[in-house]
Every structure is written in structure tokens, then in C-alpha cells.
């Protein structure tokens, strides 16, 4: 997607502050637009949005109430944030000013998504090895990130060097890595 597509889609919505498109399942920033330069890093925010949508999907599925129409709404002190799955490969995060009426924000978001959907590339997303995604997840969320590789190596009983190339881990090693990650993060399951 080139920049004018997002900009054009967003231009008419005065209360819209930013739009971020996240590529799944790796939660990487695909594209973004901001009305004014904000004090955040788009890459980081896009990652968190992707993780939020994934967690939400898992939670709803465990409740037996998931549908592809699900939407995450966050009302913070200064923003309304609406997160939607555009399709299985992309998540759209729209950040509105706090004063925007929620109903209007939802309406604008639906329209924006339709326009964005048309411009998205039709590609087959190649899923990277799960161990790679687990390591990335750990580096994003584990406390003391600079020691996390050493901690995982100790807990999983894996050589440090092997964690520098997690794509080469065999199934048993990948499972040990995942168990260590769950213990470090205090999670029962790892949705990556």
C-alpha cells in the first residue's frame, strides 16, 4: 500500500489521529498514517495492536463467542482506539480523539477498513517458524530483556548459540523454549 491510500482514506475524518495496519501473524507494522507527528513509535504500537487482537480472538474463542466481526474498543484518557481484523493477515488500528462520538468513530472505522481492504496486496503470508516468533515475543514482553536469552537458555537447557538461530531448533527444543517462555512471562498459553 502506498502512503496516499491511507492518507486519502483518513483525510476527511477530522477526529482521526492515526491509522496503523499490522501484518499478522508476526505483528509487524505494514503501513501507517498520522495526522500530526505523535510521540510514539509506529512499529511498537502496531506490534501491541496485533498482540491485542490476537489475545482477544483467543479469549473469545475460549468463550465460544468469536466471530470475524469482533472489534476491540479502548477508551483511554486522550484517545478512542478501535482495533479490527481486516482479514486473516492484517489488523487495522484507528486512533481517534477522545471527544469523538463512539458511534461515529465506529462508522468511520468501518468505511476506512473497506477502503484499506481494497488496496491491500493479495499475497500468501508465509508463516515463520514458531520458535522465531516465541523469541521475538519474549524480547518484546519479558522483564529485563537484555538477559532474556540467557534466562531461556538456562530454563530450557539449550545452548545460548542455538537461541540465536531459533529457526533451526528441532521440535523438542522448540517445546522447551516455549515452556521456558511461558514460565518467564507467567502465561499458561502462548498466543504467537
Amino acid at each position, binding site marked *: 500500500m502506498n502512503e496516499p491510500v491511507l492518507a486519502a482514506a483518513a483525510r476527511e475524518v477530522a477526529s482521526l489521529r492515526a491509522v496503523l495496519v499490522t501484518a499478522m501473524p508476526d505483528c509487524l507494522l505494514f503501513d501507517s498514517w498520522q495526522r500530526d507527528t505523535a510521540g510514539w513509535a509506529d512499529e511498537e504500537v502496531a506490534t501491541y495492536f496485533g498482540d491485542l487482537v490476537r489475545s482477544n480472538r483467543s479469549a473469545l474463542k475460549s468463550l465460544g463467542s468469536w466471530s470475524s466481526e469482533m472489534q476491540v474498543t479502548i477508551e483511554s484518557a486522550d484517545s478512542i482506539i478501535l482495533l479490527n481484523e481486516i482479514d486473516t493477515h492484517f489488523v487495522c488500528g484507528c486512533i481517534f480523539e477522545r471527544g469523538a462520538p463512539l458511534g461515529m468513530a465506529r462508522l468511520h472505522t468501518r468505511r476506512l477498513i473497506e477502503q484499506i481492504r481494497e488496496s491491500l496486496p493479495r499475497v500468501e503470508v508465509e508463516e515463520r517458524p514458531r520458535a522465531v516468533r516465541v523469541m521475538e515475543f519474549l524480547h518484546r514482553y519479558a*522483564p529485563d530483556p*537484555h*538477559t532474556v536469552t*540467557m*534466562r531461556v537458555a538456562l530454563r530450557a*537447557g539449550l545452548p*545460548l548459540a542455538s537461541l540465536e538461530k531459533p529457526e533451526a531448533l528441532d521440535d523438542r527444543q522448540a517445546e522447551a523454549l516455549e515452556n521456558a517462555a511461558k*514460565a*518467564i*512471562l507467567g502465561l499458561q498459553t502462548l498466543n504467537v
Partner: protein
Amino acid sequence: MTLLEPHDLTFMAGAPYLYHCHHYNLFHDQTVDDVLGEEAGQRVRFEAARAAYHGLLAPLSARLDKRTPAERIELAQELFRATGHGRMSLDITADGGTARGEYLHYGYTWSEKYGDAVRRLETADAVAAGFAAAATQVAFGLPDGSIGARERQCVARREPVCEFALSRRTPGPGIAAPVTEEDFKRHLGGSRGGQHEEQIGAIADALQGFVKGVGGDERGLVDAFGVFVTLHLANYYDQTAYEAVRHIEQAAPSSVGLCEALLREAGHVCVFNTFGGILASPEWEAVAYPLSGDPLEIIKGGAAIARGLGFGRWSVDEYVPGQRLVMCASSNYEAPFYLARYGRSDKPRCYFFQGAALAIMVLAHRVKWQEKPRLSQALYNELFRGAGLGFEVTANRCATRGDDCTEVVVRAT
């Protein structure tokens, strides 16, 4: 409380103690659990705390002529609060009972530091559990190992309180007695200073006087220098660290280096947070000097603070700005324990000292003290993240190996 003056080591009723902050304490425990796994880690930490506190509370009760269980329980609870570990209420008999903790140092500070970022599945207060068990043992004249404890609820798991169930056990075989002041004395060599000795010694004296007056607030916490400080027992740190190392040496020799690296990292954590907090404080200006940006001020300050906190007689043997620092500890709290418990080592074992010396060099050269930086986790990551460190440390001599002192060299990479 006694100060073994030529060695800058401190003892309470014969039990060696020192001061560490919550950043260090949490990282230390985390490392033990990383090495041993949660279940064994909890057990080793609990048993170490129980033994260490038994070794303090039994002689302390005797010295203060506390003879009845009620007197001894009261003493234990007050000691716990005064030393910055939080508030503990013991409802116990000789067969066990329950204990309830509020603002427990580990659980509370874990929630403060990490609670918003990660969830914790295991309880955090093995030290408080060990303390409660030891207090019960001492109150009723039972030998160490007679009381077990399980933390049923913990605020670090987002439960409303910390609560412990205590029960009577048959002491298992091979419970090692804690290392005492007398053991330390047996294994300490001669004391010596280094460069800038007069100034370092004077600051250390002032700091020792200052920390002696520090006590827990109404929560039972010591909130000072931007950290939560505890008066803690050397036996706990040493036993847990060395048991973790010995375990990994047996179970996974190829991973020993990782374990040692994390124990050194704990030294970075301590120096950055506690030493840094002290150096940046108004109290530092009162007892030492304002920081002008000269790295030597931090080097000297590091040695003085270590002494002031009861880490031992650390001194500066050689310093080349930006290039090289040789620090010597003619005494520290690691080596005497190791020698008393395990005998001579075949390699250097003073991991905390190694990591701390390196971190002092990093603080001296990579922090702009005149700008009064905030000692945040982000700054820590920036300073101590792998290749960005800028210095490396090697141990030249180590008292655990039978050398006359422990000496490390920090070099620019």
C-alpha cells in the same frame, strides 16, 4: 550489631548481614529460579532463609533474654519490620499455624516493578516463608528444619494478601548450620586498603553511621535512595547462589557460564540501582562530595558505598581513566561463606564482586552525573545491554581459591 572494622563486615548476634535493594533481591531470586526451576528454586530459597533466620533469631533471643514464645515472636516480628522486609503477623504454636504478611518486601516490590508487565504464577516470598518458619522454631525451641511453610496466597500473584501455612516436620538429614561471625573470622585474611584510602574510609564510616539509623516505616519497608532497601542475611544470598552454581555444575556443565554471568549481572543491578541511587542523593553530597563529572569520584564512591553497606573492604588498587580499574576486596561476604561451607575452590567464585566492579566502571564513564539522570530501567538497558557495555571483567585472584584477597580487573573492550 557489630562491625568487624578492619573488614567492613557487619554482624547481628553473630549472623553476617548487609544491605541490598529490591532490584537486586528480585534479580537474585529470579536467577536462582532460572537455574534450578521454580519448584527447586522455591525450596532452596525457603530452606536458605529458614536456616539464616534461625541462625539469627536463636542467638538474638538468647542475648536479649527473650525466653517465652510470646517474647520471641514479638522480637521476630519487630526485627522483620525494622529490617525492611514488611509486616508479618505470626499466629503459631509448636505445631505450626499461620502467618500473614503485609507489604512483604519481595511480593510487594515484585508487583511494583513487574506487575504491570508480566503475570506471576508462583509465589514470591520464600524469604518471608523461611523467616516465619524460623521464628516458629526459635519461639518453641525446635531445631532448624522442624517447621515447613507454604505461601498460600501472594500479592505478586494478584491475590489480596500474603498468607502462609506453617506445619511441623521432621528435620531432614544434612541441614547445614549457617555460617557465623566466628566462621568469617577464621577465613578472613589481613585487611588492607588501596589508593585514596583516607577519603574512601572516611566516607564509608559516615555511610555506616547513616545506614545504622535506617529502619522500616509503618509498612515495614525502607524506602530510601529511590529503592526499597533490606537489611538481609549473607547466608541467604551465599547459600542460594552457590547451591544454584553447584547444581548446574552437576546437571548441565555446559551452562555454568550462563549461571555465572547472571550472578555477575546481579552485581550490575545492585550497583546501578543502589550505588547509583546513593550517588545521586542529597545524602551523598552531605557525607562525601558533589559529583562534578570526574569518573574517579564514582570509582572512589563505589568502594566507599560497598563498605558502607557491609559488603566488605573493597579498595581501588589501580585506575586508568576510561581504560582499566583494578579493584581488590581484602574481605567480602562471598568468600568466607564459600570457604566455610565448601572449602577451597578451584576457580574464582566471587561473582557479585566481579559484576559490581564492572558496573562501577560503567557508572563512572557512561553516566552523565551532572545532568542528574533518572536511574530508570531504560537507562539500565542502555548501559548494560550486551555489546554496548564497553568493559569486561576478569578475576585475577580470589579468596575462595586460597588467594590472600579477591582482585578483579576491569578493562575497556
